[in-house]
């Protein structure tokens, strides 16, 4: 009885336990099922998200070229009238080389578009948007990617490889304005319509050779826009050597030669009667430029301190005929032989003393050299009939300090004492900002 009852109890208990265990397993199973279902849902969601992420949006505009914009504005305080700017002793160039307007003004904005065209070519368009007279093409060229053995060909409009400073965009200059020599010999900056062939040697020391042929659309060629003729209006040869020294110095030096045959290259002057006359030159113009650049940064790391020294020497020979008063506005046209050998140079140093801050000094000098003017030598005219060509050696001192809070912005203050005019010193103050928007640009050495 006792045993039976106990046994029954035990069986009942066991059954009960088993029932509970079964129920628990059932519960767990359904929980697991639910979890698996949830997981499955999340995996599906994640897969969908991954598919979405891996298929990037497509459209007509995904192959847009890299776009960047340079904006700059300037405040200029000039002690002399910028409209009367001239470089005495030197033939005026065809373009605008003066210091710009007084007061506040918007500088030239740049819009740059660049992209690889295909596996063979890269294309670049840099439009300059002047605050007054619309859009100009500063550079617009294609460049080869697929040539080997160190060869590159560029075609279109580009900054000529003559000298060093000439190839650098104004927004990347270390001073607000161009050196006097660049103004006098290249009309600020020579951009040519033409073709450039360049070869880089397979040597450890950098060595290049280049040849450019162009239309001759700008000073020292002439007339403005280029001659109405087939063939070549200007040709340039250049070569550079460069390398490293020690653990922080990089250097480069180059020679270039620019040859043009200007025809009726005109300039205005005020003759002895007080009349504004147009004179013109026809002949040959040859320019030699020797340039050198040296950059130092401890361990080639320019983040904290760096020094940059840059200098160029220009020498120009012109011979041909000079016509006085070609439009018969005063004493009437007269033509005589004209030869000149003139030179000019500048030397500048820019020192970054702490991150973001740089100071710089530049000295400019032009040498009137030797000029023989047949019209004056023969006594047909006097020096006062061609006053701008009267012998004079212009000089200029410039100092600047600039602050670049990031790679994309710069504010600069510059002072200059400019003796380009023989009769007055122009004391200039410039306060300027230069910023770049958009694609990250890369700057030449």
């Amino acid at each position, binding site marked *: 009885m006792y045993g039976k009852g106990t046994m029954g109890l035990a069986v009942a208990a066991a059954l009960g336990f088993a029932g509970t265990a079964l129920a628990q397993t059932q519960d767990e199973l359904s929980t697991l099922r639910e979890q698996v279902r949830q997981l499955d849902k999340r995996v599906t969601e994640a897969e969908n998200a991954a598919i979405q992420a891996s298929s990037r949006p497509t459209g007509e505009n995904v192959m847009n070229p890299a776009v960047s914009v340079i904006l700059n504005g300037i405040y200029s305080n000039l002690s002399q009238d910028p409209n009367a700017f001239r470089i005495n002793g030197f033939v005026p160039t065809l373009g605008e080389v003066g210091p710009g307007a007084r007061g506040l003004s918007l500088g030239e904005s740049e819009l740059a578009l660049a992209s*690889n065209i295909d*596996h063979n070519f*890269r294309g670049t368009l840099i439009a300059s948007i002047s605050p007054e007279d619309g859009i100009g093409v500063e550079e617009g060229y294609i*460049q080869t*990617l*697929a*040539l*080997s*053995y*160190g*060869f*590159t060909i560029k075609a279109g409009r580009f900054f000529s490889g003559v000298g060093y400073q000439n190839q650098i965009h104004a927004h990347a200059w270390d001073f607000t304005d161009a050196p006097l020599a660049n103004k006098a010999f290249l009309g600020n900056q020579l951009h040519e319509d033409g073709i450039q062939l*360049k*070869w*880089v*040697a*397979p*040597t*450890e*020391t*950098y*060595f290049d*050779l280049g040849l450019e042929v162009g239309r001759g659309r700008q000073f020292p060629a002439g007339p403005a826009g280029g001659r109405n003729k087939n063939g070549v209006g200007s040709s340039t*040869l250049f*070569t*550079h*050597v*460069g*390398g*490293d020294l020690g653990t922080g110095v*990089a*250097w*480069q030096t180059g*020679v270039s*030669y620019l040859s043009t045959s200007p025809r009726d290259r005109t300039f205005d002057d005020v003759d002895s009667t007080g009349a504004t006359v147009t004179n013109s030159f026809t002949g040959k113009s040859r320019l030699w430029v020797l340039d050198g650049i040296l*950059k130092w*940064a401890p*361990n*080639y*790391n*320019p*983040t*904290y301190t760096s020094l940059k020294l840059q200098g160029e020497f220009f020498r120009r020979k012109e011979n041909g005929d000079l016509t006085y008063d070609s439009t018969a506005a005063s004493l009437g046209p007269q033509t005589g032989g004209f030869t000149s050998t003139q030179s000019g140079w500048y030397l500048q140093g820019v020192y970054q003393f702490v*991150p*973001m801050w740089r100071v710089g000094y530049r000295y400019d000098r032009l040498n009137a050299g030797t000029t023989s003017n047949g019209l004056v030598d023969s006594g047909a005219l006097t020096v006062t009939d061609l006053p701008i060509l009267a012998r004079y050696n212009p000089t200029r001192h410039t100092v600047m300090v600039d602050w670049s*809070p*990031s*790679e*994309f912005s710069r504010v600069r203050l510059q002072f200059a004492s400019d003796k380009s005019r023989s009769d007055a010193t122009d004391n200039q103050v410039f306060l300027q900002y230069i910023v770049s*928007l958009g694609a*990250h*640009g*890369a*700057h*030449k*050495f």
Partner: protein
Amino acid sequence: MKAILRLIVALSSTFAALPASAALNVFTCEPEWGALAQELGGDKVSVYSATTALQDPHRIEARPSLIARIRSADLLICSGSELEIGWIPLLLTQSGNSKVQLGNPGYFEASQYVVKLEIPKVIDRALGDIHPGGNPHVHTDPRNIARIAQALEERMAQIDPANAENYRSRGKSFRERWQAAIARWERQAAPLKGVPIVVYHKDFSYFINWTGMREAASLEPKPGIPPTPSHLAELIDQMKRAPAKMIVYSPYSSPQAAEFLSSRANIPAVMVPFTVGGTDKAKDLFGLFDDTIARLLGAVK
């Protein structure tokens, strides 16, 4: 004219031509890739690294000597992800060397072979010099180097098929030694897990992610913008509330800001090699991680 020609002749005869031997000419943007190419290539490659550990790879001058080197390169190896955007495109267009142009086998971007961190959600220059493709300093995680090694090995074999066997067998041996080293480093670096650190620039993120450290702050107020006094003052306050264990900086950044914060907040500043050549002990990729972990462990004690 004649003078130019005479000069050219004189110059060309004095210049030593680059070794035109059978060796594969490898140009690398950063020293870590130079070290990797050397591991994989052995004596079949001639490696030139454009930068050293003392240079900030974001800010490099496109020097003439670099153009000269890229001119004769068969293979170019860079981190990519826009790290070298300020200089490599210029060197490439000036080099006159089609082999290493984008799209050809001679152009190798290491960061394309790994999962990138810190891909920005918002892309705007107001956020500093950010990289839209994600953080480019991928080499600070050794697991990434293993992946890149495999891709690079194949690429070298493709460019130089005559020595393909060499690259494959050296690559296999390297990857075996590397996996063993990763296992060792992970054991050694265990105490670094969860350790809060202040970095200088966001160039250490992959290492932090690998070891499980925690980036508490960076000395740069925004990527690429040097430390400012006001930002340092904020960091001092932050360190008072929640002190980090150490400040980590690389050899190419100035120690000034790190040392300033170190003395004010009383936490050690540690220079890590960052890349091969960054310290005496970081002679190769193995030494790089050995020394980095040893230096961090030294500061965490």
